[in-house]
């Protein structure tokens, strides 16, 4: 019974949150922003957390999603959300193209290769007329139909994001308990051991990467529907990728609710510190934001949720040894 208490309370709170803050557009929006951040970080979590393949270039999928949404509006006049399935399909294909060469790489090499690919796409997108070049593209300025998802209040977005997040977490939970989850954990612990047990590690890493890419892309499409604009930096910028990683790592990577917990802390922290400190123009927002991340990393290196785990929070030191590459 006890183990359902935390998720249960969370579900109830999530469902009634907009009612609790009704009348305060900023808090309504904050709820939606937390969920949007959680969708991106949870999507990343599938490959970065469960499979242990730390991608720092997930903005490539986020950007594909955001651009797909805005492109169907700009070039076809469709509502942006109609671009979401397109973005997901393209992202799965892209994940296959990127994943095949890069997933062979070990540890940090994979991370760096994903950064390089994302930067490559960012630079290319800024030279593409079709994508609006460096100027970026804007969604519908004024809502035409309800399908443009252009709401004054953030509450409709909140429930849309909540539904998507619930689906994504449900899917992750299902995977986690199934055979694929077992394989992914095995790969994360020791790829060599997993392979020797007959796990086709390359194939399962790729599946995780494609699934993760598809949902990251969906997060990008939803972002575009809410904010109505994307340019190369806000779509493919490295900060987008790093934020997903940081959110997941802060809450607990490879844990179902880890990214959500990370988003629950980081997004309000970012918004509130900017609201209260940003206007002075002294950069204090990020001093505080950075310091808090450092402190959490220092005292809870496995993420906040490691506090609630019965297992020892600190894995044995051997786990942290280099996978490859030594000083010469």
């Amino acid at each position: 019974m006890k183990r359902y208490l935390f998720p249960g309370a969370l579900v109830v709170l999530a469902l009634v949150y907009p009612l609790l803050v009704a009348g305060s557009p900023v808090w309504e929006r904050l709820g939606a922003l937390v969920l949007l951040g959680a969708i991106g970080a949870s999507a990343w979590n599938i490959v970065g957390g469960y499979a242990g393949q730390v991608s720092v270039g997930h903005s490539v999928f986020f950007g594909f999603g955001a651009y797909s949404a805005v492109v169907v509006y700009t070039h076809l006049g469709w509502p942006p959300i109609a671009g979401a399935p397109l973005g997901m399909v393209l992202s799965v294909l892209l994940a296959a193209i990127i994943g095949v060469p890069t997933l062979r790489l070990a540890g940090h090499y994979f991370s760096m290769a994903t950064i390089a690919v994302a930067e490559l796409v960012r630079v290319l997108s800024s030279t593409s007329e079709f994508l609006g070049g460096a100027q970026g593209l804007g969604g519908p300025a004024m809502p035409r139909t309800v399908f443009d998802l252009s709401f004054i209040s953030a509450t409709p977005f909140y429930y849309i994001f909540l539904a998507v997040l619930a689906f994504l977490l449900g899917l992750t939970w299902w995977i986690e308990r199934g055979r694929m989850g077992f394989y992914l954990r095995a790969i994360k612990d020791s790829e060599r051991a997993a392979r020797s047990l007959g796990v086709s590690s390359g194939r399962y890493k790729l599946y995780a990467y494609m699934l993760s890419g598809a949902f990251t892309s969906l997060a990008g499409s939803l972002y575009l529907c809410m904010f109505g604009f994307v340019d190369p930096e806000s779509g493919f910028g490295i900060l987008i990728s790093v934020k997903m990683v940081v959110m997941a790592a802060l809450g607990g990577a490879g844990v179902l609710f880890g990214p959500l917990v990370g988003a629950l802390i980081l997004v309000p922290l970012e918004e509130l510190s900017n609201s209260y400190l940003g206007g002075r123009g002294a950069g204090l927002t990020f001093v505080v934001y950075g310091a808090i991340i450092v402190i959490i990393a220092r005292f809870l290196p496995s993420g906040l949720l490691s506090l609630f785990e019965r297992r020892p929070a600190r894995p044995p030191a051997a786990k942290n040894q280099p996978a490859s590459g030594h000083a010469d």
Partner: protein
Amino acid sequence: MSITLVQVIVSGLLLGAVYALFSSGLTLIWGMMNVVNFAHGDFVMLGMYAAVMIWTALGGGPFAAVPVAAMLIATLGIVSYFLLVRHIMRGPMLAQILGTFGLALFLRYSAFWYFGADFKTLPDTIVGGSFVLGGVRFEGSRVLAGGMGLAITLALHLILTRTAIGSRMLAVSEDATAAQLMGIRPQRMQALAWAMAGAATGIAGALIANFFYTSPTVGETLAIIAFVTVSFGGFGSVLGALVAGLIIGVVESLSAYLIGPVYKDVVVYILFVLVLWFRPQGLMGKA
């Protein structure tokens, strides 16, 4: 070959030596501890501010700035190691990204708060102008930075491979527990690595400040170059970083000149991904 092309290649080589210089600290830490320091660019940035401060407050040139920046950033490295890195190494690899990214933001915006958002540059009179050799123009500040870059990366390489302290550091990086059994204190060696990396990074910053602009966010621009250089060369290989830096510098210069400046990063990233495809451990990394 036209003289302009020679000039392009020369400037690419000088640029590459500078890339190698500010990447060598990163590769050292990476190889020693398998830690990626996402705050590396901001360490360089602080080294640059050290040079700017020494010039504006005391009127000192690079000969004063280099040792001061080296000491400052080495201290910063040691402090970061003991207060943060030592602890996050016990967590998963992700904790490093979390911790050092937080550190990056903290340092970047502390500098922002203290120095302001303005771009600062050092007068180009400090390191005397430029000279022409065989029709090719060399700038003093870049030659100094490039030359020091070569010297320091080679020195780091020799320290790691030819000295007792170097072999102790390597022993720790191979197997900390075994090294401990042999009477080496891993933490001391790792702190030393952070100090050495910090010193090299500080020197890089102090030299780059002579021909580059200094601003709180400059580290972001430099960090990605450093990441690519280091993984291109192979983690932990100082020599690899040097070779990779030179290759990247020349490729950037040539592609900017021949294809167009917008595409120079595209060419470098494609080359990088290709290198990893054929040599997943980088040019000089051990498989």
